């Protein structure tokens, strides 16, 4: 049984899946900043509704960013605690890749030029482009943070996939809006997952100049 959760954008979601990727139970909480309180109790609740125990889990999959810095750390620190306690592998996936997979799994995109975009909330956008051949996604560019003007030129005539919390920041750019789904996270993990707990911040800690005086 696989535990999948995401806390990297806003709110969080938790699900348990069979090894064949079919969903058993899931819960989504869209309240921003509620993850530090409710992520762990929600994991307990989802397992309980699935009549399962932590010991039944064989694998954990979560997102590593880019996204909210705090959200990324909430997810990965929770994964670290679970890994220590249960001694099972944790796979971490890129949030932009998971978003592209979310759109794919809902069959709402079928073009060959896909651009996953998320608002950084720092005046720029996280961006990564993918191509799609025979229903499979291939990474075309590494994840980056771009200002709007550059984003528009990079996108060109491609299809933009974004999540509802970023949509309003994309002004008049036509885009396909999808929630980041747990199916998308799981599906992305079959393509490009890491087996470590390294976060993918993309943006630096934003400290430009060391302070020189007290």
């Amino acid at each position, binding site marked *: 049984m696989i535990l999948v959760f995401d806390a990297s954008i806003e709110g969080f979601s938790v699900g348990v899946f069979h090894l064949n990727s079919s969903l058993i139970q899931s819960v989504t909480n869209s309240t921003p900043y509620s993850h*530090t*309180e*409710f*992520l*762990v*109790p929600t*994991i*307990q609740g989802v*397992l*309980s509704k699935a009549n399962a*125990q*932590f010991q039944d889990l064989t694998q954990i999959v979560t997102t590593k960013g880019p996204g909210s*810095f*705090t959200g990324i*750390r*909430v997810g*990965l*620190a*929770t*994964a*670290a*605690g*679970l*890994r*220590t*306690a*249960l*001694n099972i592998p944790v796979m971490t996936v890129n949030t932009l890749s998971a978003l592209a997979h979310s759109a794919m799994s809902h069959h709402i995109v079928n073009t060959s030029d896909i651009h996953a975009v998320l608002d950084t909330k720092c005046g720029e956008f996280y961006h990564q482009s993918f191509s799609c051949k025979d229903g499979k996604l291939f990474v075309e560019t590494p994840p980056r943070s771009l200002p709007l003007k550059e984003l528009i030129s990079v996108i060109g005539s491609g299809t933009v996939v974004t999540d509802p919390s970023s949509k309003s920041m994309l002004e008049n750019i036509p885009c396909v809006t999808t929630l980041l789904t747990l199916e998308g996270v799981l599906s992305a993990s079959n393509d490009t997952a890491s087996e470590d*707990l*390294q*976060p993918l*911040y993309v943006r630096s*800690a*934003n*400290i430009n100049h*060391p*302070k*020189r*005086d*007290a």
Partner: protein
Amino acid sequence: MDVKYKTDNKTIIALGIETSCDETSVALINANKEILAHRVASQIKDHEIYGGVVPEIAARAHLSLLPGLLDQVFKDASLTPSDVDVIAATTGPGLIGGVVVGTMAAKAMAAALGKPFVAVNHLEGHALTARLTETIEFPFVLLLVSGGHCQTMLVENVGTYKVLGSTLDDAVGECFDKVAKMLGLPYPGGPQIEKLAVNGNPKAFDFPRPMIGQKHLNFSFSGLKTSVRQAIQKLQTEHDGTLPESIVADVCASFQQTVARVLYDRIKQAFLYTAEHHPDYKQFVVAGGVAANQHIRGALQTVCAEIEFAFYAPPLSLCTDNGAMIAWAGLERFQKGLTDSLDIKPRPRWPMDQIKGISA
């Protein structure tokens, strides 16, 4: 998913996680006061070019260090996570990005292992540390002096604290770090000042001694800091910008002596107040990073001898932030039945008199 409490006679084992400032630390201890494993990873190198702790850098470092430290302490102690009876983490006060990392890892472990979780107030961790290394019964007077805190309190029992006095502006450790920065000394400045002060003349400069002799129990250090800054600026002008080592040593010695003198006076006032209103208090504990300063310890030992309080201080290694103190506070709270639910929210601010006690 019921929490399982231990019923056999095996010694209780606690895991403690500390991530509230710039030390990432994990410890395993047992109820016999044995530290089974203790790892402290300092982030000083990550922050020193900024001259202070940068919150986002600290949060990132805690996440990259914590998983490895968790694995390491179990190896060190030859234990497995299921051997642990209670899991504790600092859930505040502190830099929230770091507190979140430790809190989430601890809650996830508690849930997955079906073990109780204790949300430890970082200050309570410092307050109870001396009980890990010494035999001290309640009650006692506590002076907590660190980079972020300066307060005295009556420690009546686990979870029962009454604040006597607090700093109205800077914490003592903050004042040390800022003076060090003015002198161009590396971060963190406290240990540097103590080292250089050894060769300086403590009477070379006559700095103000804020609040000395006053009856109330609060502290203030910003006026002293400003006065030291002005003196350093004047000296730098006189010496074309670069101070000779001997003068740096004199500034360090005079500043440290002034802080020690102020703390001596403030603690004397706290003792006189306590003797009058709470005559059952006969013990004094100093905790926090500044308690590592031997000169300040000496001044506090002097006032204890004068007013007849027994003096206790944790060993130097447990004065600065560490996981063992969090494991110990978690164990003490667990033994009093003070465990927490897994929907506790990490708190950037959490005054000690708001800690949940036995009666609450």
